[in-house]
C-alpha cells in the first residue's frame, strides 16, 4: 500500500523530461551524455515500478539489462568524446565542423 502507480509514472516522466532538456539545451558533449544517463535512469524507475505493479520479475530483469547497456554506452561514448577533444580541442558540438 505505498503509492498509486500513476505517481510512479509521473515521477519518472518528470525525470525523463529533465533528461531530454539536458540533452537538447546544453552545448557540452559531456552534459549531453549525462542527459542520456538521466533518461535511462527514469526508464529504470518505470520498469521497477511496473514489476511491482504486475507482480512480475521481467521488469527487474530489464533494469539489469539497462544497467549493463548504459555502462557499455558510457564507456564507448566517453572514449569518442576524448578522441574528439583531442582532434578539435573543445567540448562544444558546434565546433565539430571538420566535415565542412
Amino acid at each position, binding site marked *: 500500500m505505498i503509492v498509486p502507480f500513476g505517481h510512479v509514472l509521473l515521477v519518472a*516522466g518528470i525525470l525523463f523530461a529533465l533528461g531530454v532538456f539536458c540533452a537538447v539545451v546544453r552545448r557540452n558533449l559531456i552534459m549531453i551524455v549525462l542527459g542520456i544517463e*538521466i533518461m535511462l535512469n527514469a526508464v529504470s524507475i518505470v520498469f521497477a515500478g511496473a514489476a511491482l505493479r504486475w507482480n512480475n520479475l521481467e521488469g527487474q530483469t530489464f533494469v539489469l539489462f539497462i544497467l549493463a547497456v548504459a555502462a557499455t554506452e558510457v564507456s564507448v561514448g566517453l572514449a569518442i*568524446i576524448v578522441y574528439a577533444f583531442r582532434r578539435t580541442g573543445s567540448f562544444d558540438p558546434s565546433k565539430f565542423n571538420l566535415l565542412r
Partner: protein
Amino acid sequence: MTLYGFFFYLISAVVIGATAIAITRRNLVHAVVYLIVSYFGTAMLFYLFGAPLLAALEIIIYAGAIMVLFLFVVMMIRVESYEEVMFPLSQWLPAAIFGLIYMVAAVAMIIETPGTEISLRMLTATPRQFALYVFEHHWFSIEVISLLLLLALVGALHLGTRKGAAQGLSAHDADTRLEGGRSGGPDLDAP
C-alpha cells in the same frame, strides 16, 4: 499515507530536485556530483519497489563506476575557461515549452488510463529469487551482455590509443613518429 508512501514522495522530491540542479550547473564536476545524489535516491526507490539487488547494483555500477568514469574524463581534460554558452533564450525557451506540452500530455494520459490509480503493494524479490528467475529465463541475454561488454572494452581501447604509441617501436622512433603525426588539436598531457 503510510510511512513508505511518505518515503516515496520524499525520495522522489530529492531525486527530481538533484537532477534539476544537476542539469543547470556550469561546472561539470558539480553536475556529476548532483547526479550521484540523484542515483542514490533512485537506488532507494528501487529498494522501496522491492528490488534490493537492483538497488545495490545501481549504486555499484551507476554511481560507483559510470559517474566516476565521467569524473575521470572531466578531471583529465583540463578546460581552462568555461567556454559553454549557457542557456541562450532562443534555445531553452522552445525546449521548455515542448517539455511543458509533454508533461501536460503525460499527466492527461496517466489520469485517463484506468489502471494507474491502483496502489502498489509492498513486496520484495530477494536476490536469490531474482537471480534464479534471470538465469532460468534470460540466460542467453546474459551471454549477449557479456559479449557487449567485451565490445565496449575493445572499442574503448582502440579509440584511446594514440598514433604510434601501440606499435611496439623503439623509444626514439616513437618520439619522432609522435612529433610528425600529431594532429592539430591540443595534447592531453600538455602542461
